[in-house]
């Protein structure tokens, strides 16, 4: 069969063009990730001034039970700001982690984003200039994020080379969840008040059957894929992961002793299974198979429906005084945005007393402000005042460490996993300390 080239060649070219067009929707024209709406490029930068409506796109990872509280906040903002409309798209954290860098690198992406639930995730974006410094968004007065009211732990966590790169999307502290029924059964009166007492409680509340299977764990300690728990135990005894000089504190005697003491309880007394994820630790507490767990306010949304009779208490004090972990989801501004002014206004409103009050009531999280202790509505909430009270003593894990992911995934987490599997804390942490110092350039 012979085909006339006058037909064959245009036909082939037409097919190629069609194929290319068909594949185009995989990424939007400005490089935004699939499913994301991107800032309209043709819109002039001065729309805020001219009274025209500005649309801000916001990619967030609030997929949990508190999702409705965040969506409610966006609705409230849009209703009260007719000139600025925020379109929030919620995606799982993994998806954001994969798509956001590519979208930003190709000149697109949402105006505002929460790159990860981990504070340290923003440093890679800051280093590359993918997100804007937000020092100008902070200050005092209308239209600014009230710097003096934001928890110090959040400000420290968002500072990269002396500049602030994020605004807290939320703020939480960890408290000691304890199963009241299990404590009563064991004849324990109220939650532990010191680290020594916490250790005693953990041992007393651990039970085994005849075959040696643990039927109830005293204190569940997750070591990976979790909100960090082990750092609290280290800080409470005066140890550190990264010290004030920005170098490793893993090799300090206090850190080694704290980790060895708790690891011994895990190995010898079975107070916790080894190698738990945060989800597995939560499952044990929710199933009534764990008596105590350090966790954040989000867990109330799991344990209350599970029918557990529980309460929360401050983390017991060790030799270093009261301390707990703070966690705050960073909200950043894309360097590609055409509406920084509108974003600043959104940030200021989001961190206002009005918005934080609504978010706290809807989610059970403490407000991302330290000046709302006298808020009557919040004071009556079952959980908010308790988590808010711990804010003053709360620290962020690996705050300000630019190599956050490597320090966590390759050094700290494997070190804890090796020690809870029987290796010596002194040997492992001395080696880990050298690796961390090398990573930090110390």
């Amino acid at each position, binding site marked *: 069969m012979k085909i006339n080239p006058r037909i*064959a060649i245009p036909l082939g070219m037409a097919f190629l063009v069609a194929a290319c067009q068909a594949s185009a929707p995989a990424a939007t024209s400005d490089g935004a990730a699939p499913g994301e709406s991107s800032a309209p490029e043709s819109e002039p930068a001065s729309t805020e001034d001219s009274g025209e409506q500005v649309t801000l796109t916001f990619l967030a990872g609030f997929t949990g039970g508190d999702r409705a509280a965040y969506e409610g906040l966006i609705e409230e903002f849009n209703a009260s700001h007719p000139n600025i409309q925020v379109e929030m798209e919620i995606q799982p954290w993994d998806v954001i982690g994969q798509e956001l*860098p*590519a979208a930003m690198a190709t000149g697109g992406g949402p105006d505002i984003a929460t790159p990860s639930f981990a504070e340290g995730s923003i440093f890679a974006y800051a280093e590359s200039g993918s997100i804007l410094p937000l020092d100008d968004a902070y200050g005092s007065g209308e239209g600014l994020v009230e710097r003096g009211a934001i928890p110090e732990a959040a400000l420290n966590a968002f500072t990269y080379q002396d500049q602030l790169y994020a605004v807290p999307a939320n703020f939480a502290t960890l408290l000691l969840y304890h199963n009241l029924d299990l404590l009563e059964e064991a004849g324990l009166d109220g939650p532990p008040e010191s680290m020594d007492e916490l250790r005693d409680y953990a041992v007393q509340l651990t039970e085994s059957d005849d*075959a040696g*299977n643990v039927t109830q764990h005293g204190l569940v300690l997750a070591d990976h894929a979790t909100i960090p728990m082990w750092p609290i135990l280290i800080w409470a005894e005066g140890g550190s992961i990264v010290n004030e000089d920005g170098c490793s504190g893993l090799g300090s005697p206090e850190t080694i002793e704290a980790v060895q003491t708790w690891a011994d309880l895990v190995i010898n007394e079975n107070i916790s299974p080894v190698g738990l994820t945060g989800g597995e630790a939560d499952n044990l507490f929710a199933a009534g*198979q764990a008596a105590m767990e350090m966790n954040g306010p989000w867990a109330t949304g799991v344990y209350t429906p599970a029918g557990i009779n529980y309460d929360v208490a401050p983390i017991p004090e060790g030799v270093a005084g009261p301390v707990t972990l703070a966690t705050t989801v960073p909200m950043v501004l894309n360097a590609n945005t055409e509406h920084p002014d509108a974003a600043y206004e959104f940030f200021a409103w989001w961190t206002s007393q009005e918005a934080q009050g609504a978010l706290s009531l809807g989610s059970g999280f403490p407000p991302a402000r330290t000046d709302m202790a006298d808020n009557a509505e919040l004071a009556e909430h079952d959980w908010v005042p308790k988590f808010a009270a711990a804010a003053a003593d709360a620290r962020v894990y690996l705050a300000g460490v630019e190599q956050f992911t490597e320090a966590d*995934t390759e050094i700290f987490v494997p070190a804890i*996993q090796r020690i809870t*599997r029987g290796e010596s804390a002194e040997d492992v942490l001395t080696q880990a300390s050298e690796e961390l110092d090398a990573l930090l350039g110390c």
Partner: protein
Amino acid sequence: MTRAFKVHPAYLFLLPSATALLVFTVWPIAQALWISLHDWSFLSDARPFIGLGNYVELLGDDRFWNAMRVTALYTMGAVPLQIGLALAVALALNERLHGLALFRAAFFFPVISSLAIMAIVWSFLLDPNVGVIAGWMTDLGMRRIDFLGDVTLALPAIIVVGIWKNLGFSMVILLAGLQGVPREHYEAASIDGAGRWQRFRHITIPGLRHTLLFVVVISVIASLQVFDQIFVMTRGGPLFATDTLVTYLYYQGFSLFRMGYASAIATILFLLILAVSAGQLRLFRYRDVD
């Protein structure tokens, strides 16, 4: 007079597939090779050419060699067991049994189910505290085992799940191959006094040679690329005991955004698969005396 330009019609028929292959396979491979020669970060505008720098770094990277070891162990554990079991099941299901269709469907079911969801189900089954298997062990008065949390047991547990998932695929292919072996050969062998083992050794296996080649090559490639069930069940842990080349590649690319380094790992994996597949094809061809 101009000479007519002749286009063989075969090329037109090839055009759609060739275009898709070029755009979605050849071009990305070439891009990955090019990226692997750069210090290429997702987030940075500066992506300097560093030649073989990433490959040199890989040579001294303990986690890369650990990932190579884990990937090799997974492949050596999963492929022979999976194909051996698949062959046994295919032979059994090649007989005239009651409820044959039901058995075939049951063995094939894992293939059509979502691996991510099945991995979550298996994680729950194997959970030492709330899992069904732990419950049975407790009922029997045994000490519960944390399969996925134990450094020595995690990889075997992942291998078992991989075999469970892929057994049906190999079985169906082998079953089709078995049905292509002429019945007369078995009858003739029986008349000549051949036993079951001799019939299997001298008729079934030679008759399945090409089918086995296909199943082995496909299974080895899939095993070298194992990712889903590990990502869901252990994320490469505990202590990197299930960290394969692809999970490590994912970590470098999507947690550290080091696309250049991740591409170098991908290139090594590509070459590894190419070499192993070529070796298998050569081996089977060498033994092909037909």
